[in-house]
């Protein structure tokens, strides 16, 4: 199965679907100017993905078999679990975002990129800082603040490197060519602004000059939920808005729906985080605000779903053939599902059961993996051939990657949702001894370990394919993308 390179003229709604040869040559030039930096971030992200996967497996097994590696303090559950989360968030996800979003941004801005040196420096600092941070967590310097576990001595490094990367992205936008600003660009631009703001406020108000009492908790969930909603989500949606029309060669269904989706997301998502504190020691009005916002999230979600669906409708064959779209559409569908479940979880009566259980953990993976990560995989399948002017070496490995990941995450999400629900129902019945709630979850936690095995195999297939493709011996196709002939999909 090779990537179908879009050469057929497409209706032009922006620079991205142009059939104009001039524009296509320009894109090839941009790709070449971005190659080194994008590949650098990509390789980093894959290393982190593997590291995070190993940590995840250890944590997953420990959750049902606590004696597994039980003698090692640095691998105790509380630490590996946090190391896993941070490896995935700051290592895998952020590097993947830097690779994918900056590359798409550069393409949409239609300008060859300059100052790549800055990206290498910033990227190196980022990865060094993340490594120190994760080793720090394992060594016992973690903060035990959810999503901000890295010790405070790496904060300045992360902030500095992010500042450089974010500034680079904004500069790319500032010096864009052409008038039209495409929807992906708003998402990326907004996220590039939101993330540093969230991170700085959270670090200051929780770690450096801690606010009093549970104001910390509110800040914590404002941050943690918004990392998903205002950083991962816009990045993945921006990529999807770019890739779906691009691969299908037709414009996005409705421009107005994408405007609506953007603004409703911007408005509602950032109030929703307090739903993690329902029933907690904070004023009730705050919780109510969080619940209202969480329910309002139905608007951007449904609007996005309709928009994507209407774009894809009639082209399901192409979606299935294209590795990019198979992953991206899987991700986009997961986005709809996980967001609707998320809105439901914010309702007090549902939350009473799901809060404090593995249901939430399942939900988090539904979002970060089934939605975000799958879209990033899809984007990488699209990006690599264009950066390297080569095709993916093995269609079989792509198949394996897709199926192991799709089945793996499916098992995990179902297992943790069901197990978590049972746990919550039992916990709310005071006649059931607590230890019985613990025992009841064990089979479901074991199903998560099985799912972890699947995901690991999928990631290995992916990594092999990527590094194989990078090998210089691999067949190289000269010239800009436009000269490549469309190949028949083998799958």
């Amino acid at each position: 199965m090779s990537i179908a390179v879009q050469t057929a003229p497409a209706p032009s709604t922006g620079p991205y679907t142009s059939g104009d040869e001039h524009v296509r040559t320009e894109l090839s030039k941009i790709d070449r100017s971005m190659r080194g930096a994008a590949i650098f971030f990509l390789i980093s992200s894959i290393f982190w993905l593997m590291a995070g996967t190993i940590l995840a497996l250890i944590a997953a097994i420990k959750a049902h078999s606590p004696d597994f590696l039980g003698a090692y303090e640095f691998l105790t559950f509380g630490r590996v679990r946090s190391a896993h989360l941070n490896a995935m968030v700051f290592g895998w996800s952020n590097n993947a975002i830097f690779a994918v979003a900056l590359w798409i941004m550069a393409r949409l801005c239609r300008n060859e990129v300059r100052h790549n040196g800055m990206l290498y420096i910033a990227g190196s600092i980022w990865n060094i800082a993340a490594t120190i941070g994760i080793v720090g967590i394992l060594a016992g310097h973690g903060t035990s603040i959810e999503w901000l576990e890295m010790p405070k001595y790496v904060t300045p490094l992360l902030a500095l490197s992010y500042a450089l990367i974010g500034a680079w992205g904004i500069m790319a936008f500032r010096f864009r060519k052409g008038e039209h600003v495409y929807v992906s660009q708003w998402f990326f631009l907004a996220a590039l602004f939101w993330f540093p703001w969230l991170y700085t406020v959270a670090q200051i108000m929780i770690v450096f000059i801690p606010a009093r009492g549970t104001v910390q908790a509110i800040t914590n969930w404002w941050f943690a939920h918004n990392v998903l909603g205002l950083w991962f989500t816009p990045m993945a949606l921006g990529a999807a808005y770019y890739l779906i029309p691009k691969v299908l060669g037709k414009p996005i269904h409705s421009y107005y729906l994408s405007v609506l989706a953007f603004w409703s997301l911007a408005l509602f998502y950032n109030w929703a985080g307090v739903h993690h504190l329902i029933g907690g020691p904070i004023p009730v009005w705050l919780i109510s605000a969080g619940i209202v916002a969480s329910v309002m999230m139905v608007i951007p979600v449904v609007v996005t779903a309709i928009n994507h669906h209407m774009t894809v409708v009639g082209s399901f064959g192409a979606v299935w053939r294209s590795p990019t779209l198979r992953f991206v559409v899987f991700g986009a569908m997961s986005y709809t599902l996980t967001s609707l479940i998320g809105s439901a979880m914010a309702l007090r009566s549902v939350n009473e059961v799901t809060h404090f259980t593995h249901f939430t953990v399942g939900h988090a993976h539904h979002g970060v993996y089934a939605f975000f990560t799958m879209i990033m995989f899809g984007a990488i399948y699209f990006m690599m051939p264009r950066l390297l002017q080569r095709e993916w070496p093995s269609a079989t490995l792509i198949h394996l990657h897709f199926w192991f990941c799709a089945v793996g995450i499916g098992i995990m999400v179902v297992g943790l949702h069901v197990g978590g629900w049972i746990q919550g129902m039992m916990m709310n019945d005071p006649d059931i001894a607590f230890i019985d709630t613990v025992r009841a979850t064990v089979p479901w936690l074991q199903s998560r370990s099985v799912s972890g095995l699947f995901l690991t195999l999928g990631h290995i297939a992916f990594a092999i394919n990527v590094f194989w493709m990078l090998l210089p011996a691999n067949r190289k196709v000269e010239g800009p993308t436009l000269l490549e002939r469309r190949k028949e999909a083998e799958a």
Partner: protein
Amino acid sequence: MNNLPLLFLGIFFTLAFSWTGLILTSQIQFGKLVQTTEVLDEEGNPIEGDPLYPEQIVGLAQQGKQVYLDLGCIYCHSQQVRRPGFGADTERGWGERQSVPRDYILQDRVVLGTMRTGPDLMTIGDRNPSDDWHHQHFYNPQITSPGSTMPPYAFLYRVQEVGVEPHPRAVQIPEAFHPGEGLEVIPTRRADALVAYMKSLRMGYSLPEAPIIEQ
């Protein structure tokens, strides 16, 4: 969309709005709470001479909090009691009343937690003040709670050969879990600190806004 100023303003104000609404307002509303007495006088002031709550945890317990943070207990244990009728927190004996913002004001790191793989620990010091129980439990949770998924924290204990006299602080370990003949299990300072922290987690006091109602 090509109206960039609008885009930038939108990006800025949406987040500014939620930050103001959620965080700044909270900070203003209850970011300055102080200790108070269990009941107030007629004018609504703390009663002079009465003990002030919540109490500050000090010394060894404070060090134990650090151990709690660095081992990541928070990923399985919450420290918050929900109101009666919402969940079964009170019925399970996790607290006689709901916990409120004032209960947390003296903690420099608030660890409300979001998981209850294990029970809530807001009142573990009231429920179970036994040193021996906690040491056995930390050394290996299966001793006290068969089937538990809590990790063993045996690395917080020193296993040594029994000297002329058994060590006065040796933890009583049942046969099946004992490291072996002629050996004894001694808590390290971190284990002692963690137990002291557990015992300091108490909520047996009333607050004016959250009185304990005698049944």
